């Protein structure tokens, strides 16, 4: 016993000493910061985001970094875990900013983005907040040093409803995840679906992060005899919901909220088998994105990280490339305001270089089409690209030109986001 005590004590000491040696910072590179959930619930999502960023940094360095006024800059990705705890996120951002000099910080959860937006404009410690959050609430916080990466989720609400309506579905029942994102989705979907003339027969949310059995909610929802179920949260539990609903005898369709990815579910939960997933509408499979860069990105991504590729990774990858270009355009790697201002000048992105090219910028919002897909008859049947910001036909044509081709384009103006 005594020997064990001594042994473990010396282990602790050794660890602490080792730790002291490892913390020395070096390299004159430009640091790109990330804080997000890397452990606990939501860690899969956080890692998807981070992986895309890592890949972008790796690629730009391989091409020799960027050059401003004859000086060459390479990049370094620095990430910290915040477990969706606001105070940890603020600590991490402070650390990234004042210790590692990061002027651009990514975060993927609104709960932690909101407190970061309280400090990113403080004099002397400004940083550009790259927010991967599709909630319109970001716009309520008046903040000039923010750019939001994904399309607003309302674009998906409208796009998926559009396809479902076309298919003749009318009665919806909802078994969506609890949480900020799910709550907003449910509300927005109900509002939109009822305005189309559809009916919402049941609303039985479940916590996708903590539960694994959804049969009581699904049974209650199915008892109202709906045409389809609106489901979704993280992809894995969403797959379980599909399976459990099918096991309860449900033969109708599904709409997946945009957090859940149909190809991820098919590959990870059902091992590539699409038989349970007939009549699923959701965000398109990554390979249906029309840009030429996708296939190569997909292959490299899955080889390197050994996880399924997702839109989170691709959008973050593309967004970080905007930052690199904007730094070059602005001629600075340290002034967040100048970098932000230069962003709109480097858009649209070239579909040869990034998997999901951004086409423009509107205040804090980076503009990228919402891509929707349908599974029918055991295969990925259709995919559409929804342009949600053009105000009129003319603007639509302009952006259609810019958007990667090879996919059906649809126009779906969203209130509060239109631009020409």
């Amino acid at each position, binding site marked *: 016993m005594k020997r064990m005590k001594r042994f473990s004590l010396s282990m602790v000491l050794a660890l602490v000493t080792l730790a002291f040696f490892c913390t020395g910072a070096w390299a004159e590179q430009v640091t790109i910061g990330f804080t997000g959930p*890397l452990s606990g619930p939501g860690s899969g999502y956080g890692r998807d985001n981070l992986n895309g960023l890592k890949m972008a940094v790796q690629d730009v360095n391989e091409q020799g970094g960027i050059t401003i006024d004859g000086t060459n800059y390479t990049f370094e990705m620095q990430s910290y*875990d915040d477990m969706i705890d*606001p105070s940890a996120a603020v600590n991490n951002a402070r650390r990234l900013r004042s210790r590692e000099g990061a002027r651009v910080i990514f975060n993927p959860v609104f709960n932690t983005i*909101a407190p970061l937006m309280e400090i990113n404009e403080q004099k002397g410690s400004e940083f550009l907040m790259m927010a991967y959050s599709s909630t319109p609430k970001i716009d309520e*916080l008046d903040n000039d040093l923010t750019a939001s990466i994904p399309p607003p989720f309302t674009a998906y609400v409208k796009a998926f409803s559009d396809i479902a309506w076309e298919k003749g579905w009318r009665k919806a029942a909802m078994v969506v995840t*609890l949480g*900020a994102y799910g709550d907003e989705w449910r509300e927005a979907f109900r509002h939109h679906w009822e305005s189309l003339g559809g009916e919402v027969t049941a609303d039985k949310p479940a916590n996708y992060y903590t539960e694994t059995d959804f049969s009581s909610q699904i049974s209650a929802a199915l008892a109202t005899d709906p045409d389809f179920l609106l489901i979704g949260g993280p992809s894995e539990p969403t797959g379980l919901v599909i399976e459990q609903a099918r096991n309860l005898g449900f033969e109708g369709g599904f709409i997946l909220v945009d957090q859940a990815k149909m190809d991820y579910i098919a590959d990870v939960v059902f091992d590539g088998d699409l038989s349970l997933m007939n009549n699923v509408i959701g965000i398109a499979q990554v390979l249906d994105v029309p840009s030429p860069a996708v296939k190569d990105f997909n292959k490299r991504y899955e080889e390197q990280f050994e996880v399924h590729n997702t839109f989170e990774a691709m959008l973050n990858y593309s967004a970080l490339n905007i930052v690199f270009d904007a730094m070059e355009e602005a001629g600075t790697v340290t002034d967040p305001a100048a970098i932000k201002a230069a962003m709109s000048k480097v858009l649209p992105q070239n579909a040869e270089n990034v998997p999901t090219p951004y086409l423009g910028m509107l205040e804090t919002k980076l503009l990228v089409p919402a891509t929707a897909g349908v599974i029918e008859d055991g295969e990925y049947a259709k995919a559409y690209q929804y342009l949600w910001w053009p105000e009129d036909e003319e603007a639509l044509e302009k952006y259609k030109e810019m958007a990667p081709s090879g996919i059906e384009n649809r126009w779906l103006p969203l209130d509060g986001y239109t631009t020409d």
Partner: protein
Amino acid sequence: MFTKPIHTKLLYLAILAAALLLPWYVPDAYIFQIVTMSVLYAIAASGMNLILGFTGQVTLAHGAFFGMGAYGVAIMTKAGIVFWLALPVSALIAAFIGLLIGLPTLRTRGAYFAIVTLCFGVIVWIVSGNWIELTGGHNGIFGIPRPSPIPVPFFGQIEFFTQTGMYYLALAVLLLVLFALYRLVYSVFGLTFMAVRNNEPLADSVGINTYATKLVSFVAGCFIAGLAGGMYAAMMGAVSPSAAGYMLTFNFLIFVILGGMATLPGPVVGAFAIPVLMEFMQFLDDYRMLIFGALLIMVIIYFPMGLVGGLRRLNQKVAAWRQQKFPESDHASR
């Protein structure tokens, strides 16, 4: 019995001076942030220590009361009430709800009380995420205004837009809370707390109303948690259900136990040592929680009385050793 040797007093004075002068030598905004948050956590943990350490009731709802303070300030200041009124009112609300919950649950003992309070904590956490009209749901409340400046004659005014302002505010509250706890715990009334902790049936038989004693301690602890939560809201500018979560309770618990239960400096030491350690271990990436978990187990095995308890024991040993070695010099110093 409670008088301290002179060098301990000197140590406390030195720490106080260091704390007051902190903004002049703190190296960067990151360290400043950690220290300020630690001051806040120290307040909340001291409140928990009153219930847990001095009265012996294992409450696992402390994060919930912290959250009530945070949401109270968030809701009231967003409605236009000044922070300086919203803060005490929120803490009073937390204390009042603590009273309502304490009345039935303090009938239970030991592990039963721990789990009842844990359940209450989880309920508050769930409600804070789902009562959208009041709490903003899982998105929470954001854009919370900073405390309004305090005018000081001949000096201008104290602003709270900077880290410095918030730090001094938190520090002032911490000192106030510690002072109040010091007076309370070492009073005759405070002794009844410890009597209840050490032997409840015995305390009962010598005429102490143990139920009322536990209730007073619980409500006071909840009030302190509410104070800390209220300042958290103003400092972060955004409140979400994690500010009322049970993980927060576990953090406070770890601060109190590892710092040193039933000592006044213990929770403060814990609230500084643990977050600093956690930040320091960030470079371990995926292995951070793995190693932190193992460390937690080892520390609790080797320092069952917490860091402060361990130091005191060490101090005693040194004193005993000295006495043995130089018996006359010890005499002389008296």
